């Protein structure tokens, strides 16, 4: 089977990006097994990230035919085209710099402000069970079209994590967290659902964002585009 890998090297002239085709003689490999085959048998310079091989460490997300996938969890198909994640700068080949996306967790203060133990029921836990399965693989971040036009947008996983914390029974300052997702946050999302479609953990950031919107209205926030429509100020010509 043949696959193509988009390769990037800042020093390559004239164009740092090239697409290279490889023949993979393995039987039903995962993408990660195929990448490892290339690196150890064909070309040592091929560069990608990997870790646990069992879809929990979030290291190996790439795009396969323009759709985000974990390399270790994807069965390779003939003709697949492999490219690095989008919205993050490429360092080399399939490796991207992830620091930028993690800063969104700092900006949203996605954690409990005060440590405390509270009795929780099975239902309390179930409410945030799926959201806390996030492995920070950046698939949703890469898939988000809003980040294409607004680099300041907080992006799907940070908003899911905010929803996870404000819905946590131990959280005491819901309002403060809700305040932080108003700008470049929940209202900027177009609810296209790309993030939900690509999440390897079955998390639904779109739903979490909608839930954050309804929580926000409790604190008097409203959709700014809607607010604009009801502008009774000076007439605009």
């Amino acid at each position, binding site marked *: 089977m043949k696959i193509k890998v988009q390769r990037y090297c*800042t020093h390559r002239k004239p164009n740092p990006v090239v697409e290279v085709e490889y023949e993979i003689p393995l039987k039903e490999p995962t993408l990660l097994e195929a990448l490892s085959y290339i690196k*150890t048998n064909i070309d040592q310079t091929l560069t990608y990230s990997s*870790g646990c091989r069992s879809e929990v460490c979030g290291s190996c997300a790439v795009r396969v035919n323009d759709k985000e996938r974990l390399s270790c969890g994807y069965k390779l198909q003939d003709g697949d085209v492999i490219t690095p994640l989008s919205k993050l700068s490429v360092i080399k080949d399939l490796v991207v710099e992830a620091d930028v996306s993690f800063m969104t967790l700092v900006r949203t203060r996605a954690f409990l402000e005060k440590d405390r133990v509270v009795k929780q029921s099975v239902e309390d836990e179930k409410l945030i069970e799926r959201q806390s*399965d996030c492995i920070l693989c950046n698939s949703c971040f890469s898939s988000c079209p809003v980040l294409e036009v607004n680099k300041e947008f907080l992006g799907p996983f940070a908003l899911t994590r905010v929803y996870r914390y404000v819905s946590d029974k131990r959280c005491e300052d819901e309002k403060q967290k809700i305040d932080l997702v108003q700008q470049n946050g929940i209202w900027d999302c177009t609810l296209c659902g790309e993030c939900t479609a690509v999440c390897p953990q079955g998390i639904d950031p779109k739903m979490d964002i909608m839930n954050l919107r309804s929580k926000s209205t409790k604190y008097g926030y409203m959709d700014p585009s809607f607010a604009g429509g009801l502008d009774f100020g000076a007439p605009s010509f």
Partner: protein
Amino acid sequence: MEKSIKVDTLVIGSGGAGLITALWAKKSGSKVLVVSESYPTRSQTSMAQGGINAVLYDSLGDSIEKHIEDTLRASRGFADESMVKMMCESAPKAIEWLDSIGVVFSRDKEGNIAQRKLGGTKYNRACYSQDYTGLKILQTLFDNSLKEEIDFLHEHYLVELIIEDNIAMGAIFLDIRSGELKEVFAKSVVLATGGYGGIYHSHTTNSYSSTGDAIAICLKHRVKTSNLDFIQFHPTGLKKSSVLISESARGAGGKLLNQNGERFVDELLPRDEVSLAIWEQIESGNDVFLDIRHLGEEFIDENLPQERKLAKLYEGVDPVSELIPIKPVAHYSMGGVSVDENLMSSVKGLFAVGECSDARVHGANRLGGNSLLEIVAFGMIAGEKSAIFAKDSSFKEYSKVDEVRRYIEEIFEYEGSENFYQKRDELGEKLYYKAGIKRDKQNLLSLVEFVENLPKMGIIDKSRTYNNTLVEFLKFENSLLLAKEIANSAMGRLS
């Protein structure tokens, strides 16, 4: 131009052990820097599925004494009772802390933290989060590190420890992205770099980056290490990929069968006994399977969703209706850098915590659910003690960066065509079959011979930007050092 950095406490490694150490060192007033070869949430801690042991409620018949007894019994007499006691006694506090910082534990009907049974005990003692226990702990620790504004250097690989006159002074890292060397000087240094199961390439549940790099560097500096031959083989790795099927599958009633449908061992014995029984089946030509069909689809999807997903992906079988082909695989390294009750090594100011350390709590065989406990219970202590140590000492800037640079340049200058990746795979095979579950002198000697007779090797990739071939080559060199040490240590134990 290389840069040097100064911090009170340098934590190397950003898995569970590293993050907990950093949080507690900071709490104790230290200026902390965490440096790791990857990103915090990508570490091996994410892979711990089964749970974290703690005796929380007396009503279940369990007690801290029984937890200590079970741990000592599983250790085959090689654990230290006072260290085990310290770990088991602090377990309830460790869970309470994790609960308070936001870890999403599974709950029972009474609203308590739910607990389940793992191997080597009669009691439901392991607190868990479905089969994502390590993952959820690790992610929560990362969130808390951001909250506490812990400083990180991501993607910096440890190449050398700065140790002079038996005092730790810092470390030198390769900035993987730029290819530059960075020197970090610190008043205390904590190793939290994980184990070396990854050197059993293709026969391990570990990431292939788990090559015990810091331990290998310690060996070069003659920092005291111990029990390096104590490698735990997990009974149920998937046959083709060695990917882990959690012990919780057996805890819930999963059975081990051979191809004739015969059970041959009590599945809930400690891991070493179960692995040996499986190995003997395989040696006699049998195939071995894990059977969880009788647990039912609903139970499997609720409690063992990862197991189902992985069996389908790697073996092409659905455990709801089919048997899962398994083999025992290298899973955890009990040996490591020897530490005292303060988690300090034989070198002043050099601490070690988690799988890279030998804190004598697992002995020759670790109990399932005790590894997460160790990183939390001892991470807290390592954090406090390393901070206290830093308060009472000063910087000693002894630069070794030129020496390290020469060493790296030599690797780049290699002009041969030997493919070290092939040798890395061979090393994995040799380790599995010659220093695996059963060991004898002849096999161990042939492993040593293999290591000693390897040709000179280097890298073909000469790029300076994100050259992970260089990193993997350095890891391979460390693996060779450890393989030899495992063989020697195992030989010393043969009667």
